[in-house]
């Protein structure tokens, strides 16, 4: 490992964003985002389309460069040259959503898994040996290296993608909806594999999902994003149990109930409106927010840490359970 990387004490931040903003043309995809992935923990990023979660992943992988703000790995700011980025890139493995898209159908499994090693200058024979080892680690011990992705199901392909992500033995694993395109019975197998690998390979994990239930199940910390901004972030159980930002609450209430006698989605839906590319001045959730007041339309609410240690960007957050109980 490179000697220039500073040691971080256990529990310290491995990957951090500071005031990161990313514009694409005239559209802001990520705005003023602070993020800390703590060593040995899983950070869940939750958001819907347009929330900026995928752009955040691409920024963390240095596939995009921030318009402003800094991203650092173990305290070391991402360098601006490609060559020097390669030290950081090898510390971050990534798994994408769709294992049908992310694996090249014309490449053999052995080549797919050893490709990152080859790119980082590992000799062919060594790379092949490593490929066998990581394939075993993801539960594919006897797979012939000359097979093609076509002979694997969705779950098998995602195991191969995970093996590729781990081939350089990274410290961080970044997963962008890795189970969203899998069947429920296979989803659990992949989640369990990730939970095991996190421990056995001492990984710190970023797990992006639109599924708050899944995030609650596997993440220590959660970051809820809406239209490019972080609206609520903190301990995953706490946020799930009593959301404070109206958007987090709305997301949770949109999850279907678990039994025909506990239906949640009865009642009239709000009318569907066409969203114009409105210039926003205030809170981006204001147009949809049931708690909106005048201040929300003129000023962006800052993230403020509340008594539960959760940071919420809202002028009129939902009450804490204690305050609500006291009524």
């Amino acid at each position: 490992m490179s000697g220039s990387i500073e040691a971080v004490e256990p529990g310290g931040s491995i990957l951090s964003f500071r005031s990161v903003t990313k514009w694409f043309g005239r559209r802001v995809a990520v705005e003023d985002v602070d993020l800390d992935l703590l060593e040995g923990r899983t950070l869940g990023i939750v958001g819907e389309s347009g929330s900026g979660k995928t752009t955040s992943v691409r920024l963390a992988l240095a596939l995009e460069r921030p318009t402003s703000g800094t991203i650092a790995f173990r305290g070391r700011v991402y360098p601006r040259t490609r060559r020097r980025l390669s030290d950081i890139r090898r510390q971050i493995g990534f798994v994408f959503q769709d294992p049908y898209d992310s694996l090249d159908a014309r490449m053999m499994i052995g080549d797919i898994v050893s490709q990152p090693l080859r790119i980082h200058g590992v000799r062919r024979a060594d790379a092949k040996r490593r490929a066998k080892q990581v394939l075993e680690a993801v539960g594919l011990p006897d797979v012939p290296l000359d097979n093609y992705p076509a002979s694997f199901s969705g779950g098998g392909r995602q195991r191969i993608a995970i093996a590729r992500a781990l081939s350089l033995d990274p410290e961080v694993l970044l997963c962008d909806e890795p189970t969203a395109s899998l069947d429920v019975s296979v989803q659990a197998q992949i989640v369990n594999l990730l939970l095991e690998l996190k421990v056995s390979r001492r990984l710190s994990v970023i797990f992006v999902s639109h599924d708050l239930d899944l995030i609650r199940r596997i993440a220590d910390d959660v970051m809820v994003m809406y239209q490019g901004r972080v609206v609520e972030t903190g301990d995953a159980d706490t946020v799930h149990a009593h959301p404070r930002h109206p958007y987090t609450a709305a997301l949770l209430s949109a999850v279907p109930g678990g039994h025909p006698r506990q239906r949640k989605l009865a009642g009239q839906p709000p009318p569907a409106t066409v969203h114009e590319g409105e210039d926003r001045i205030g809170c981006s959730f204001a147009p949809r927010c049931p708690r909106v007041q005048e201040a929300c339309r003129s000023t962006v609410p800052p993230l403020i840490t509340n008594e539960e240690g959760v940071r919420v960007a809202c002028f009129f957050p939902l009450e804490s359970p204690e305050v609500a109980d006291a009524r």
Partner: protein
Amino acid sequence: MSAVLSIEDVWVRYGDLAAVRSANLEVQPGQVAALIGETGCGKSSLALATARLLPANARITGRIAIDGQDIVPMSREELQTVRGIKVGFVTQDAMAALNPVLPVRRQIGEMFEAHRGRNRHDAEELAVEALRSVQIHDPEGVARLYPHQLSGGMRQRVMIAMALALSPPLIVADEPTTALDVSTQAEILRLVAALRHELGTSILWITHDMGVVAELADIVAVMYAGRIVEQGTAEQVFDAPRHPYTEALLRTLRDLRGGERGGHMYQVPGQPPSLDSAITGCPFHPRCERASQVCTDIDPRPEVSDGVRVACHHPKLPVPEGASG
């Protein structure tokens, strides 16, 4: 015999591959039936078969009656009197289903021209009304837009408006919310729940999501490897799943919702069988913890008790009410 949809011993084959193997299902007026299963179980083939929308290489046998009319033997001309009129179809991928070069008012308007003999002007006004009925704010504005100008949720509403335009007694919806965000999905589910009460339309809803089934369905049919392995009312199925595969799907859902953070998730080992090879015995037996010799040898026939139809040699029967333990 007033079922809106009656599926009897339906098989769908693509060459040697049997995607649907002897499916039976009835949907009564005003009912929402959910057909749940995972990738490759045959649920989409069965859904497409109910509107005769299968690709040309597919062969259907059996009987699919909509409002008492068997559509399996129908010619292309006869089908024109069924599609849109007796059955409306909503797909997962609205972008692919809508014509990209026609504004919304023309797409929906054409249905009124073709089937109701309206002139273009009247047809487009009816199209605006159809959009209003699915609670689109500013239906006149949306009617002028092209599909690519609409958000995913809005496109799905337009598809639903089209499917409902000619007031068919049956809507078949193939994973209509799968590609949508959570909050947009919630809006569509609310909309469908409201519409079915207003219009009394029967719905066959195809999904892989037990949460959606819980939210919407009156009756549930669980598909595995081309077969409907369990079928009953939503409450029966959720309260006391009899087939081990149904039980596994429900355990997965409950574990996701209630399981401990960081703890192992409940998982079914293995993969579903591929349907291009012959299956001996019960198709679920390699993954089943209840499997015995009979399961390896003999494919279980569906049996009905208390209105629940289940194909399993070892079904878990509900504990009678009042019994303890």
